[in-house]
């Protein structure tokens, strides 16, 4: 089972679903789920197979290489699994909407191209799959019509700019070392001049930064995520953001080798430190902006940018624990962020399209399973000890503190607290509080939506209690990169400087929880009362006028909102406007009067001769 | 006898014919007039500065079968002379079916006073947007503030009728 068959299945599947759709919806749905399932299974069974296949296609004598090792396996499995769940989730979500064949084929195409990126062994095939992913994402983002169109346009412009800059980087690499295959390329850059390495880093960093929504390049993400259809935005923010991470890891650890990267520049101005600072800014500012949001999906979009900041911080900091933390946080973030988007999608599906946090409320009574998924999701997002988010953040903080950079640690920890605030706001405004009149009769989410939610929540808890499994995989990746692996056991990290053992924490919580539950059960039985039998200073609870969770953190928002105007967005908008104005200005040249055109020709001729006579250039 | 009171009295008399104006003491001026000229008087007072309706109270002259409404008007102004003036506009209306036009168009704050009078005296104010009960919880066929309302009899046949729980339980 070599890799080209996997890619063939993926891309072929995408095309076939489009035409199957013409025949019947049912077959197409089943086929789409079957294809994504097959992808997940095949990707999974490449576990510690590390093989390389080279195909000399006619593509301008660039070799087309596919390779798989634990590093690419780790990303491929996450992509395939999250893709599978989002397709299952979209079975119901998309049924009522327009041209569904287009949606399914594009979704499979995006997943296929992401797997292609992860399995590609050389930079050209990496670039080809990267571009296919960009334009298929563009088509999917603008699927929702209306405001989604401007969101899609903003996305495609930034990603085309990023990939064009990367193209320059790839070609200059090719011309310097006339090979683009990772294995050959990795050794060569060590003796290159640090100026050239910096040039390459900047180029690639812009491309991956756009995809990874790093702070100055994050502008496209909030509109794109909130306008894209929910199952796709769970793919978008779950894994597509991580392709940028994959690129950065590839750049730092495979192409430039970690030791070269570490001693680039010295002290404060070292590249490692600058990227960490960018990562920290990407954590802080979007977290505070997320606090101000009222639209659920836009809040999650800003939180995606913040969490991507953690991953960048973890990877760029360079020590083996921080890289492990970064990669583990990638894995966790893929799970709980796609879970949260599915929860919001389920709520949106049931209340047909309401995402505004101020008008939702009390849905726990109607959609309990979705609530439990959402609760576990935000616990993962925050990093409550028994969830997987905790372990990865703990790793990042530990290295930051012990390697004497407390200010980075401070900013990251403050980011966590911001996450607590906005994630609780998400759950509270959507599920808790009074149930408004108009949502009395909504049913619970259909089974095809609940299945991925339940499985992903179990995954969060499972990997939270047993972080050893993913950490073992990450260890083998790190040793592949030539860094000394962490000392881990199945239950957590046992290094000498600081240990966490999730088993003890789990048993402690379990035992104490049961004890408290027993005390609770032993005492008098409490009568269950509805939402209208409530303390209202002696009067009865007025229907529909008793929900105070409108703009939840109003005092804080009033304090911080003047400082958080998104000036980066205004900068990009003014740039676009100035290009349009120059365009209009230049259009004036073609005046429409043929006399002017003839004068232009003569002037051109005169200019040529004048230059030759005076300066003898030619 | 301050001159503002007298000057006010002169121009009121000049405008309106069938009204009776007399200055009872240094700062009080009472105007008694017909039911339907109340609106015009109040609007003219409001126009030349007396823009505060302090209270609308009602007196139940049961003997000559009339209800007398008293509008107490004063002015929010700096000059102390005018500020101290209190003007009482009195009018009498029949007791059987008391009907009157609302003054809310002139003085906004008349709304609760008129609701209270409606509830306690049964006066119906035509044109009042919300004549709903203000203070009382229960319905009364004779409005309680009227003189012919016998509270003691009311208490006997409402409150005392309600049995104690023990006797009710005993009897059943």
């Amino acid at each position: 089972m070599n890799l080209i068959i996997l890619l063939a299945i993926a891309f072929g599947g995408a095309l076939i679903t489009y035409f199957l759709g013409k025949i019947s919806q049912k077959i197409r749905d089943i086929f789409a789920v079957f294809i994504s399932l097959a992808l997940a299974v095949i990707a999974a069974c490449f576990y510690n197979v590390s093989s390389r296949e080279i195909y000399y296609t006619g593509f301008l004598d660039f070799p087309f290489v596919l390779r798989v090792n634990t590093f690419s396996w780790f990303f491929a499995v996450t992509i395939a699994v999250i893709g599978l769940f989002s397709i299952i989730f979209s079975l119901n979500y998309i049924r009522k909407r327009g041209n569904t064949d287009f949606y399914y084929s594009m979704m499979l195409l995006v997943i296929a191209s992401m797997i292609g990126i992860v399995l590609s062994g050389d930079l050209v095939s990496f670039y080809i799959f990267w571009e296919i992913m960009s334009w298929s994402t563009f088509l999917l983002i603008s699927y929702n019509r209306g405001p989604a169109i401007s969101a899609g346009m903003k996305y495609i412009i930034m990603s085309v700019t990023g990939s064009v800059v990367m193209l320059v980087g790839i070609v200059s690499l090719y011309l310097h070392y006339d090979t683009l295959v990772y294995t050959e390329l990795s050794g060569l850059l060590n003796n290159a001049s640090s100026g050239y390495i910096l040039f390459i880093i900047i180029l690639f960093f812009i491309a991956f930064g756009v995809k990874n929504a790093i702070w100055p390049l994050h502008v496209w993400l909030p509109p794109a995520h909130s306008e894209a259809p929910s199952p796709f935005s769970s793919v978008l923010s779950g894994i597509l953001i991580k392709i940028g991470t994959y690129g950065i890891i590839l750049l730092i650890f495979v192409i430039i080798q970690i030791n070269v990267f570490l001693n680039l520049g010295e002290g404060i101005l070292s590249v490692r430190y600058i990227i960490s600072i960018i990562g920290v800014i990407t954590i802080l500012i979007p977290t505070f902006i997320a606090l101000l949001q009222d639209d659920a999906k836009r809040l999650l979009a800003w939180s995606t940018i913040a969490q991507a900041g953690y991953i960048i911080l973890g990877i760029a900091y360079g020590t083996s624990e921080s890289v492990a933390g970064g990669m583990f946080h990638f894995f966790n973030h893929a799970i709980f962020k796609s879970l949260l988007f599915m929860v919001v999608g389920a709520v949106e599906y049931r209340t047909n399209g309401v995402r505004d946090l101020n008008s939702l409320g009390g849905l726990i009574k109607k959609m309990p399973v979705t609530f439990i998924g959402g609760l576990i999701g935000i616990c993962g997002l925050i990093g409550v000890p028994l969830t997987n988010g905790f372990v990865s953040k703990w790793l990042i903080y530990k290295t930051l503190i012990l390697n004497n950079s407390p200010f980075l640690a401070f900013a990251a920890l403050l980011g966590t607290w911001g996450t607590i605030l906005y994630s609780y706001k998400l759950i509270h405004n959507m599920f808790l509080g009074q149930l408004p009149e108009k949502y009395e009769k909504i049913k619970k989410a259909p089974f095809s939506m609940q299945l991925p939610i339940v499985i992903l929540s179990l995954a969060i808890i499972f990997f939270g209690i047993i972080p050893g499994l993913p950490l073992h995989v990450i260890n083998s990746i790190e040793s592949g990169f030539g860094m000394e692996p962490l000392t881990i056991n199945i239950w957590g990290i046992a290094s000498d400087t600081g240990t966490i053992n999730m088993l003890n924490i789990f048993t402690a919580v379990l035992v104490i929880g049961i004890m408290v539950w027993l005390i609770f059960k032993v005492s008098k039985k409490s009568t269950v009362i509805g939402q209208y039998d409530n303390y209202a200073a002696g009067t009865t609870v007025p229907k529909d006028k008793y929900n105070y969770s409108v703009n939840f953190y109003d005092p804080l928002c009033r304090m911080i909102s003047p400082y958080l105007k998104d000036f980066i967005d205004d900068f990009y908008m003014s740039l676009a406007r100035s290009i349009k104005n120059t365009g209009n200005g230049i259009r004036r040249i073609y005046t429409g009067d043929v006399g002017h055109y003839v004068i232009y020709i003569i002037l051109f001729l005169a200019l040529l001769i004048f230059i030759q006579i005076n300066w003898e250039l030619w | 006898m301050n001159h503002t009171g007298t000057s006010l009295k002169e121009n009121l008399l000049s405008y309106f014919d069938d009204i009776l104006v007399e200055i009872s003491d240094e700062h009080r001026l009472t105007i008694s007039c017909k039911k339907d000229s109340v609106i015009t008087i109040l609007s003219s007072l409001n126009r030349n500065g007396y823009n505060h309706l302090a209270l609308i109270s009602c007196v139940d002259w049961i003997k000559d079968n009339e209800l007398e409404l008293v509008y107490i008007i004063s002015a929010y102004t700096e000059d102390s002379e005018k500020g101290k003036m209190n003007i009482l506009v009195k009018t009498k209306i029949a007791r059987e079916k008391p009907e009157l036009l609302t003054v809310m168009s002139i003085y906004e704050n008349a709304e609760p006073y008129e609701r209270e009078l409606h509830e306690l005296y049964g006066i119906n104010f035509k044109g009042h947007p919300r004549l709903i009960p203000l203070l009382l919880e229960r319905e009364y066929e004779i409005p309680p503030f009227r003189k012919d309302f016998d509270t003691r009899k009311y208490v006997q046949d409402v409150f005392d009728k309600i049995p104690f729980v023990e006797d009710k339980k005993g009897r059943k």
Partner: protein
Amino acid sequence: MVMNTILEIIIIILLAAIIGLFFLGLSRKIMARIHWRYGPPIAQPVIDIIKLFNQTSMSHGKLFNFGIIFSLSGSVVVLLFLPLGEMCPLSSSGGLLVILYCMLIAPLGLALSGGEAANPITSIGISRKFLLAFGYELPLLLILLTVMTHFNTISIVDIVNMQLQTGWSFQHLPLLLSGIAYILILPAILDLRPFELIQAPQEISSGPMIEYGGKFLALATIQHAFNVFISLSLFTNLFLGGAENPGYFFLKMLIVFIILLFVNAVTPRFRIEQAIKFLWRWPALLAFAGLIIVSVTG
């Protein structure tokens, strides 16, 4: 080995409960004395808890029950990570960061059950709770980072042992600054008067706990007692040299608590904006200065 850890756990939990409730009773007694009145018996909290356990209560659903259970077990779990003299059962499986994160479970549990109570006053109480938590977290993080970088470790047991050798951490200037900052934010952590915004009885009639009847209120008061014990023991462990012998340890905690009570008795209540502004100004400044000094002197 497992036996004596279980033994240690039980001892710690009982000790913490007793000390916590004793502190609550004492606080009400001291407040009364300051008000120049006789005040309730010291064991009043225990009596309250017994009464509450006998009362029937109304619950708003499963999450309402789960929330209070989750928050109490969260507080008790944090307890196990804190060293009490040489007894520290779970210190091997998690350091100061784990404590910081576990201290977050209690407010989250309370918020969830408060949310389920579907009362707008609880929403206001919860949003105030989180805002205040966000307020005092900024200086608290700076303080913890200063201590951790100063002792260059993230496990609290090492910090206590180092303090045993080199004496209290108040001698070093940066730690003195962050100690003072910590005292400034302790009333916010313990929900005492200048920052008693969450259960402000006059304004939002005891905030998130508005729908807590009999046994819920009992569990909430127990959780509050544990929270008092945890915060004070964390402070004494980090700054006052931990516990050579338990008696001396409790005395230090008591002194700090009494200082806070004096402040609590006389100061009015902050509005939420003023509270955040205050917390982000003075204590944050002090702690930041401490952190700079520590990271500079290295």
